[in-house]
């Protein structure tokens, strides 16, 4: 019986394999083959050209543009079905050091980019070499057969992949496709968007014809055509394109409908890159749109409200309790001040444990920290709990050690009783561990990441937003080149499908006179590769109004200074030697009014966080010396 089923399965598969039978599959092959043919023609052209002749360069440029249109036509599938191969067709960077979440237990690894974006960029250079240009295209050609392999094309046989491709497509409409993230020619961004929307419409049609049991609804298709018409009416320049209305009135409502279909049609994923996305989130601006870090730690499985409240109570006490530090004078709240957005607005950095020198980095806000996959500005931690523990045991920060933390915490009857009771909810742990302590802390502070900002309410609930904030958002998404690193919706370095954290080299100076580069090696400490020197994880700009000073070393006191820094092209733009700067060193030419608008937009990302008063008192220890400690510590 089993053998019979297996046999018929093999037969069916091979049948499907050899002849793509439906309109949808045919559309797939048509678009993918057109891209391959375009790339091959481009390769021929490069081979027979002379890069010193301007006419030849122009001809190659036009051929690249044609290929890009074909790539955009197939982007719906290419990017989702094989994201790693995709980087050879459309790598945004020549070299990327990546740690995606499902690889976070491994060392970061290098991915060489290639393809059309890099080829177009290379063509702009003054000193060009034909072989280098040809290689960028050859790598794209070499990867194309992947998209014909059975492991990829078998996805086309049912509706599942389609809705997941479409989900990523919609997220990228909001986060990437209008920002120039991978389009060096800014004049081509909106025209390419038009091409892509048109091609995707034909994919939609073919899908509905081939899979009538799970169609895109009429409501979805109507709204999608409205979106196309909207883009058609918009100006061709991405800097005057109305990104705000595009997302609020079209992309996000389409996302809502798409999520409904994903649930209704019981769409199941076969791709690891989907795991972070949440099927239940109806809006791109719902904070549950993706899972970042596990804030509950060991208490992940606790669902009971009373138990959750108890963990929250203990977590709060611990957050304010200097018992976690080596000298019982310093708590989490000493630097992450709960009424100052869990940052410290006082100075460039906080004091070291010795109370003399300053720490090398500015205190980051803990709000929205769980929306990252790698923690710390150098990405040295992969869980919130380990990060918390590392602060407690860092001799420069809280200066304690693992054994003392546990002993001192458990010397307090309240903590001991509470954690003993909580053991029942972590049956895999036979005894109370440091991870119980760190899990309670991360769960406590993470609840302050659940709030929304006026911008979210405008996008999602249609509330009005001041005109200058809207103008600022449109600049953020275009001319000011912010959104190519601070991605919608969290405005941090996590882009769809939200499975990795990005790092950038900005050339942040050590002093505001730009005499030298900040000596902090950043990511290099974790992954010593020449590209990662002085690279830092892209932070969120949410609540930035309240988290001055800025940058890893707190060098800029105001948002105006930060905007000026970017406007000048970062450290390299200011004349510092930053060989590996990932930020363009070109000036942005923002007017004073444009800068003000940008800041108005950033202010619209101030979340309406409801803070709590500190606990009245801390648990008593059986060691009387410990009972002199103060709520929140002393420095």
């Amino acid at each position, binding site marked *: 019986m089993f053998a019979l089923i297996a046999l018929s399965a093999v037969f069916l598969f091979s049948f499907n394999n050899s002849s793509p039978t439906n309109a949808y599959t045919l559309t797939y092959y048509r678009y993918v083959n057109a891209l391959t043919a375009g790339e091959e023609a481009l390769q021929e052209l490069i081979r027979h050209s002379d890069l010193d002749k301007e006419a030849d360069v122009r001809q190659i440029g036009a051929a690249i543009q044609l290929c890009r249109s074909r790539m955009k036509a197939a982007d719906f599938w290419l990017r989702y079905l094989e994201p790693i191969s995709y980087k050879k067709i459309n790598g945004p960077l020549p070299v990327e050091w990546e740690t995606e979440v*499902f690889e*976070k237990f491994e060392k970061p690894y290098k991915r060489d980019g290639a393809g059309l974006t890099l080829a177009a960029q290379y063509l702009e250079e003054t000193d060009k070499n034909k072989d280098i240009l040809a290689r960028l295209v050859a790598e794209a050609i070499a990867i194309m057969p992947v998209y014909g392999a059975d492991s990829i094309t078998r996805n086309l046989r049912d509706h599942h992949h389609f809705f997941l491709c479409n989900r990523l497509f919609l997220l990228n409409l909001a986060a990437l496709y209008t920002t120039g993230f991978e389009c060096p020619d800014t004049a081509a961004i909106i025209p390419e968007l038009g091409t892509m929307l048109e091609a995707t419409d034909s994919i939609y049609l073919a899908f509905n014809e081939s899979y009538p049991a799970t169609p895109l609804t009429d409501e979805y298709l109507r709204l999608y055509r409205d979106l196309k018409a909207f883009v058609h009416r918009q100006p061709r320049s991405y800097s005057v394109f109305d990104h705000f209305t595009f997302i609020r009135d079209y992309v996000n409502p389409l996302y809502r409908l798409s999520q409904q279909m994903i649930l209704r049609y019981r769409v199941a994923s076969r791709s*690891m890159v989907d795991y*972070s996305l949440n099927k239940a989130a109806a809006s791109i601006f719902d904070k549950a749109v993706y899972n970042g870090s*596990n804030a509950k730690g060991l208490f*992940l*499985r606790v669902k009971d409200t009373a138990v959750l409240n108890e963990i929250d109570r203990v977590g709060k006490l611990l957050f304010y309790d200097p018992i976690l530090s080596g000298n019982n004078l310093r708590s989490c709240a000493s630097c992450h001040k709960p009424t100052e957005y869990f940052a410290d607005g006082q100075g460039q950095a906080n004091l070291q444990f010795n109370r003399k020198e300053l720490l090398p980095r500015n205190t980051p806000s803990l709000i929205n920290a769980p929306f990252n996959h790698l923690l710390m500005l150098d990405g040295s931690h992969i869980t919130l709990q380990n990060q918390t523990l590392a602060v407690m045991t860092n001799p420069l920060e809280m200066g304690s050690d693992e054994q003392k933390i546990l002993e001192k915490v458990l010397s307090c009857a309240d903590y001991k009783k509470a954690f003993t009771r909580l053991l029942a909810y972590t*049956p*895999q*742990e036979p005894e109370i561990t440091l991870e119980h302590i760190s899990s309670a802390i991360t769960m406590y502070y993470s609840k302050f990441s659940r709030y929304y900002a006026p911008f979210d309410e405008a996008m999602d609930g249609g509330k009005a937003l001041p005109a200058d904030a809207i103008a600022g958002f449109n600049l953020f998404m275009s001319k000011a080149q912010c959104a190519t690193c601070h991605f919608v919706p969290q405005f941090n370095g996590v882009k769809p499908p939200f499975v990795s954290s990005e790092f950038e080299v900005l050339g942040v100076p050590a002093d505001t006179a730009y005499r030298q580069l900040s000596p902090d090696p950043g990511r290099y400490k974790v992954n010593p590769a020449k590209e990662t020197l002085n690279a830092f994880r892209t932070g969120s700009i949410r609540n930035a109004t309240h988290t001055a000073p800025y940058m890893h070393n707190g060098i800029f006191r105001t948002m105006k200074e930060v905007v000026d820094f970017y406007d000048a092209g970062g450290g390299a733009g200011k004349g510092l030697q930053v060989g590996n700067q990932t930020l363009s060193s070109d000036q942005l030419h923002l007017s004073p009014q444009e800068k003000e608008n940008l800041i108005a937009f950033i202010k619209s990302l101030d979340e309406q966080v409801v803070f709590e008063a500190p606990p009245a008192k801390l648990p008593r220890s059986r060691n009387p010396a410990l009972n002199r400690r103060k709520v929140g510590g002393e420095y």
Partner: protein
Amino acid sequence: MKKPIIVSIMAIGAALASTSSIAQKKSPKIDYVFPDAMAQPVRDQYLKLAEKGRVLYELSCAKCHNSLVKGKLLIPDFTEDQLGAYSIRVANPRHEEQVSESNVSAEELALISTFLTYKKKNEPLLLINNGIAHQ
């Protein structure tokens, strides 16, 4: 290579229709097999991790994967491929729900894999084809 015996869970499911006690039934004492080259202190550490993994397996996996064979509780053997960390999350539609980030953390997934890797294999090897792969 030895040819694994593949047992379809549908067959077992039919045999189990009358018993709903698998989830409640405690796992028997587990024997572990560690590589000979593994030094004792490392082995001790792995044993602790595997035991944590066993508890998590019981919480998150046993209900679907364990079975009763002649009244004896059986924890199936998994191949190295099947234990490929994150791919477990999308191994099948049911996993997509049950083994999601909000139900099993990445660290827990690693512990479960450790348990299943070092758990002594059944004799004969019983590789469970969970039968709910995509159509």
